[in-house]
Structure formats: C-alpha cells, structure tokens
C-alpha cells in the first residue's frame, strides 16, 4: 500500500475514533425522569375532552393509582357513572384498596377536594 492510501486510511481511522469518542456520554448514566407527573398529563388531556365528562381516581396520585375518564356523554351523571365503572375495573386489576372517587365532573372539582390540587388518599 502506497503512502497516500496509508495516510487516507490513517485519517479515516482517526476520524472514526474521534466520532466514537464524541459519541460517548459524559455524565450520569440513564434518562432523567420526567418532571411532569402522569396525573398532571391526564388532567391536561381531560380538560381538552368534550362534555359531558368525568374523571375518576383511586389510590394516591403521587404514587400508585388508577384513573378513568368518560366523555361525550348526554349528562354529567352518565359520564360520572361510566368513569366510576371503568375506574373500578382498573382498581381491581391493580389491587388498590381504596375505592374510586370522582375527581372532576365536566370542569368542576368537587368541593371536598383541594381546588386545582390533586387528591392525596
């Protein structure tokens, strides 16, 4: 192999090594956890749903919980019933002891829950 191809080869190897070096991650391993909680995301999605709608929750939304929504229903009561039924189904799957409760009906949060906050049960 002549001088020029050797130099080219060397340059290619050097470039590849540099590229590989650049590709190494500096810093801690892994993906940073999200800063928004699942419940915050669910609440944002819920607000965009068409009425009548309801959101039911069981468990601790800062830990293990289940939720279910219903939307596009003829009345708030129908939406609440449907959300509760779906939530109960999921609650049994996840073996959460406390029962499902309505967190919101249409855009209203029931008075006993902290307005704008999340239930902690």
């Amino acid at each position, binding site marked *: 192999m002549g001088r020029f191809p050797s130099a080219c080869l060397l340059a290619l190897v050097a470039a590849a090594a540099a590229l*590989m070096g650049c590709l*190494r*991650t500096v810093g801690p*391993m892994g*993906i940073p956890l999200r800063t928004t909680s699942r419940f915050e995301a*669910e609440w944002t999605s819920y607000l965009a749903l068409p009425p009548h709608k309801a959101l039911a929750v069981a468990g601790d939304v800062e830990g293990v919980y*289940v939720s*279910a929504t219903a939307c596009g229903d003829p009345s708030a009561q129908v939406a609440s019933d449907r959300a509760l039924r*779906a939530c109960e189904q999921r609650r049994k*799957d996840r073996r959460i002891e406390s029962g499902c409760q309505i967190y919101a009906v249409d855009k209203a949060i029931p008075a006993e829950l902290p307005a704008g906050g999340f239930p902690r049960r």
Partner: protein
Amino acid sequence: MTACIAVLCAVLLSAQPCGAQPSPDETSLSVLSYNVHGVSRFIAKDNPRDRSPTIGWLASRYDLVLLQEDFEYHDLIAAQMPGRATFRGNGVGRDLRRVAAKALLFPAAVLLPRFSPPYGAGLTTLVDARKLEASDPQRQPYTACNGWMRGRANCWAAKGFLRVRIRLSNGAAVEVYNTHLDAGPGERSKAVRRQQLDELAEGIERLSGERAVIAAGDFNCAFGRPGDGDLLMSFRERVGLDDSGAGPELPVWRERDYVLYRGGPGVTLAVDEAGEAGEFVSDRRALSDHAALFVRFRARVVP
C-alpha cells in the same frame, strides 16, 4: 420455662420445612417486561450504549425476560445474560416503504455506529434455560401502522408479536407472547391499535387455543384515556386474560405496559407479587423511558 422454649423450638423446626417447600406440582416463575428504549443515540435522549449492559445485568435475575425496543443494543443486553435461550421478533419484512427507507438510509447505516432504521419488531424474549425449556417461536408482524413523519413515527418499526412456548420445572406449559403496539393518542393511532389487538387475539386463538398464556409488553394503551381502556378490555375479554396488576409505581411514568395472563387445561397461574421493578431507576434517572414491570407467578399443574 425451659420446657416451653424447647416445645416452641420443636414446633417451629417441624413447621418450617412444610412452609418453605412448595408442592412438587407448584413452581414459581419470575417475569420481567421492559421497553428498553434501545433506539439509535441520534434518536434517543441519551446514549443507550451506556445503560444497555446494566439493563442486561439487572434483567438476568428474572426467569423470563420480555424486552421491547431493543433495536440497536440487543447484543449488549444479551451479553449480560448467559445461559438464556434468546428469541427475537420479526424483522423488517417486505413492506415496500420500509425496504425503500432501508435502502435510502444504507449509507448512514454504514457510516454511523448503531444506526439502522427502519427496524423490525424490536422484540426479544429471553428464557433462563437452566430452569425452563423454550421452544416453537412464532413471529408475526402487524399489518397496519400509523405515521412515518407524523404521529409517533410508528411505521419505522415493523411492530408485531413473538410467541414462545415454555415448559416449567413442574411440567406446566405456558405460551408467552411479547408485543409492542403503535403509540399515540389520536383516533388513527387508536384505530391501528384496535387492529393490532385483533391480530394479536387472532394469533393467540390460532396458536395457543385454550392453553395457558402470558401476554406482556408495551401495549401503548393508557387505561385512563377515553377509548384505550375499552380497547384493552375488549381484547382481554376475547382471549380470557386477567391483568397481573403489575404497573408503574412512580408518579411520573405513563401507564402503557401490561402483563396479562390466564391459566389453561392442566395449568393454573396465580400472581404472588406484581409491580414495578424499582432497580431500573435510581437518583431521578432511569435505564429507559418506560417503567420495568415484574410479576412473580405461581404455576400449578392440576389433574
């Protein structure tokens, strides 16, 4: 007093072996389902090369490991799990759009390390061959996908399901399905998921009949999202699957992954323990963008 202690010790000593030894018809099976986000580092938010060996090392504690999205780093994960029978899902297949994309990106795939989209299913099932017999893998790609540039770019992977038959130490046979469905909250994504779940249900009916089944993976179904819960429940009811109860325990995880199961003729499956495998998260960082789910099943052979 001394006599009382002696009697108590005798009772405890005689009782312990009975409690500790399971019946010969009964055995336990630990299962891990984990979407490892093993896409190219140019797509991932980090360098998966760094975390993949750790994923493999931690996963090696489980009897049965079902991975999704191990596209580019399969070798690094599998290298940490010696003594495993390894089964991979379907490849890219003959879809003309994927073949064309593969050809177009070939130069990049040659130049860039671990960059080879479009992908196959990205599914791997690893079975601890010291404890379990594994056989008869069946792979099937789904016929529909939603989005190349829009949505969640689902079509860049030929998603599908992988079936592996396992036999436990007590002789119980279980059919294990590993799957990954299309992502996205839109109506088109939901329609595709419905079709994919229909194809999975048809596959379970055709390949497994009434036999015991574990079906796990990234279903991309958010139970709380209108429509998704119904999709999942319809699928479960059609093939008679229960939910193991495994789910995310940190409040930041989205609920997308499930471990479903059913018993079959001569085999019962019960859940001893299920949840999030917390060892894959530490110090506000995780080894993937999904929660790792685990279940410890008790499998019993019944006459």
